[in-house]
């Protein structure tokens, strides 16, 4: 009795705090997927097809049909998540099932192959499926670990506030730089011109020491101390230092967001390629029946 109420308590508090989609409803989909895998592995172990287990046995065709249907359903998450209406299943339930049943495809797909691979469309479909699953695993992993780091880095700032802060500093830099000569003004202008969002995909994903027009401006301005009125220099250096900090924070933010997103650029296109490969796989089987 005590245990039951304890469990209830845990569940209630979990629901109040945060119930990860992975452990949705006390790991419901993890249990269902594990049970499914276990049953399929047991059938595989006791099935003794002639001449060998592969996709073209009765069990092989069954696994293939289950797998294809599952893949199509898993792909439908892309449609479901765009529809705001909750429907019978919440998006969280749907995502939980997507992850756990998607993982069970490793077992379904591999048993379907009967552990036979080759340089052909069939193994291509298998490889694409594994690529989709691995990229999805990466996605689950970063969703489990990065959001906390993201919010830690962001502090109290929202993205809009970060953007506004950057613009405000830029405006101040611009006005503070007005008395500067052409050389010094050029250095500040370079900092103003630089797009914190620029540099392409590699810049987004790159980590390491910050080296940009703002840091260079900080450095260059100090070397020009003689050419710049002292009060303007002090103000500019203070502004550049603020901007430096904000840009670093923004770029950490962008990097984390990019990692949170980049796997989808593998996951989604390879899913579509996988469906194309599955169509080719099924067509080939029936074409050369």
């Amino acid at each position, binding site marked *: 009795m005590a245990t039951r109420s304890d469990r209830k308590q845990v569940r209630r508090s979990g629901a109040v705090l945060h119930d990860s989609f992975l452990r949705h409803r006390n790991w419901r989909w993890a249990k269902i997927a594990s049970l499914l895998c276990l049953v399929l592995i047991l059938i595989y172990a006791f099935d003794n097809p002639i001449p060998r287990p592969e996709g073209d046995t009765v069990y092989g065709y069954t696994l293939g049909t289950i797998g294809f249907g599952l893949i199509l359903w898993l792909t439908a998450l892309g449609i479901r998540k765009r529809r705001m209406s909750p429907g019978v299943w919440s998006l969280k339930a749907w995502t939980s099932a997507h992850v756990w049943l998607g993982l069970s495809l490793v077992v379904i797909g591999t048993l379907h192959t009967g552990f036979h691979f080759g340089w052909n469309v069939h193994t291509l479909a298998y490889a694409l499926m594994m690529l989709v699953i691995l990229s999805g695993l990466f996605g689950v992993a970063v969703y489990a670990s990065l959001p906390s780091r993201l919010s830690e880095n962001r502090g109290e700032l929202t993205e809009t506030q970060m953007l506004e802060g950057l613009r405000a500093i830029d405006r101040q830099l611009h006005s503070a730089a007005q008395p500067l000569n*052409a050389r010094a003004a*050029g250095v500040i202008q370079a900092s*103003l011109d630089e797009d914190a969002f620029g540099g392409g995909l590699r810049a987004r994903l790159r980590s390491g020491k910050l080296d940009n027009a703002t840091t260079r401006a900080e450095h260059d301005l100090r070397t020009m101390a003689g050419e710049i009125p002292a009060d303007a220099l002090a103000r500019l250096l203070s502004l550049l230092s603020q901007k430096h900090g904000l840009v670093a924070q923004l770029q950490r933010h962008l990097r984390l967001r990019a990692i949170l997103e*980049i796997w989808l*650029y593998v996951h989604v296109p390879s899913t579509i390629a996988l469906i194309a490969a599955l*169509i080719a796989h099924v067509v080939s089987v029936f*074409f050369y*029946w």
Partner: protein
Amino acid sequence: MSFLIHAVSVSATGREIRRSRRLEDARITVGRDPASDIVLTDLEVTLNHAELIQTGPHRLIVRAVAGIPFTIDGRSTLESEVDARAGTEIRIAGFRLEIAWDEAESAIGVTVERYGLPGGGDEERDERQLFTLVGVAPSRRLLAWAGALIVLLAFVAWPIASYMAASGKKLTSEQMMAGAAGFHGDRSWSAGPLSAAHASLQNNCTACHTKAFVSVRDDSCKTCHASVHDHADPEKLRVALAPDTIGGKLSLAVAHAFNRPAGRCVDCHTEHKGQAMQIAAPNQKFCADCHSDLKAKLPETALGDTKDFGTAHPQFRPAILIQPGANPVFRRTSLDAHPRQETGLLFPHDLHLSATNGVARMAQALGQVKQGGLECAGCHTPDPSGAGFQPVTMEKDCQSCHSLAFGRRDGQVRTLRHGDVAQAIAQVRDFYGAGGGTSVQPLEGYARKRPGDFAAAQLASLAAPGGSTGQAIRALFAPNGTCADCHRITGPSRAGAVDYKIAPVTLPDHFYVNGWFDHRAHATESCASCHNAPKSNDAREVLIPGIATCRNCHVGENGGGIAKKAQVASNCAMCHVYHKDDRRGATAAQRQEKRKFAQPSPAASVRDSG
């Protein structure tokens, strides 16, 4: 000499604000320096950037001071003369200076307006997408469509194009074996390498897959395998193959719905399972599917139910000779019935194989063996293939001991013709008649040692002191005479006649009609370990071993049964062929040819060890 300066700015709400002031001067300065007449707050503008100098009532010169060019009506220059009435537009960094003659104020109007904002262009982008990878990474949609298109082109369109190009071309078996040139797109559809025998067809899918969406039919196989026989009467096959379980019926219905008729060659001979797969040595399950309860399905069958050699196989039923002669009659009889066969010959194996009796001593005296008695191989010569044995003949295998020499004249030994009673009688008559009673000496040396010489000596002793030809002939066929050593003799029909008859002899050369047995594979064994010849004292005994003897070493395909000596996994194909051969044609020699294809895997058999 005056300028009218209009400074235009835009309020936060987007409202345009104009501030105008009049400068009574012929020369005004433009720059970032707050002391300039026109201040341009852009860091690209130098402190003292340019100046406007009025040269006439409506004319002025625009000149760059710091050597940084400005743009006037689209072209970049350091100095330009302008007519204010015609108007012009000067651009310096992010500012636009529009010059026009103001008739009402009688001054040169300069409208200063900012057209680019500092910190540039973020507002133009969607702020919501600014933090995402949209625009940074290639579009997911584009990647998806491109990937799908590439896959569909390479793995659907190309293979179908290859099929279209190749279909309709009927190849001969030689062309198929030669293989196809180039890489065919449909090769990417191959589910796995073909068996070694079909490896040359790897690039030639349409050799077997002749029609799209139609499963491989036997016609494709028969292009090359033209002489393969059916297993049994097709109608009986249909009855026997009909599934009796719900699962089997369901499976058949599904196969039928998907256009895969049952009973095709490929049902047993599965392809695309790798080079090492023995396509011609099907699993015993294929046989057991029907034969485990064939009697129930096909009551008229003479075959016993079987599903595993080690555990469920009926006793052998060799073809037992029941009537020797020119047209011998055989009947398949179970060895459990201890059948006896009348070959027409009197031949006790034990007598001939004894190591100590007179036969053994004679063999030693003749130098056939150094010690002990005769060996099986003394009479049984393997056939050229080694699988079976050549027929035993009097001339080759018996006569070296059982001599038919009966007399000597003019230094020549006379020998009776074997196998022709009338001829033998004529030979005796000729000898005595033409010789006019010439004395016949018993053959020297081995006299009375060999059965034949014994007979010849009898003949001679009867004939020499005035004995008649008739007596000699009667002695020949007498119960203790030469012929009766080995043959059953009938006659004469009346006293004094010589119409003797010898019972017909037929020595079967093989006993199994449908199964096969290869002696070579058993070379490690002695003959007597299977054939109980040393203890057989009656030629009518069948010395073919029963299944219990085989099971000393042979177990079922999956190890079923208990073997005392070895554990040789034995599937059906080790002894049987599926495809019905011409009955008498299924001899060891012809099976030799088949063995090449139906060899069970070496690991499961001792066949190759010999």
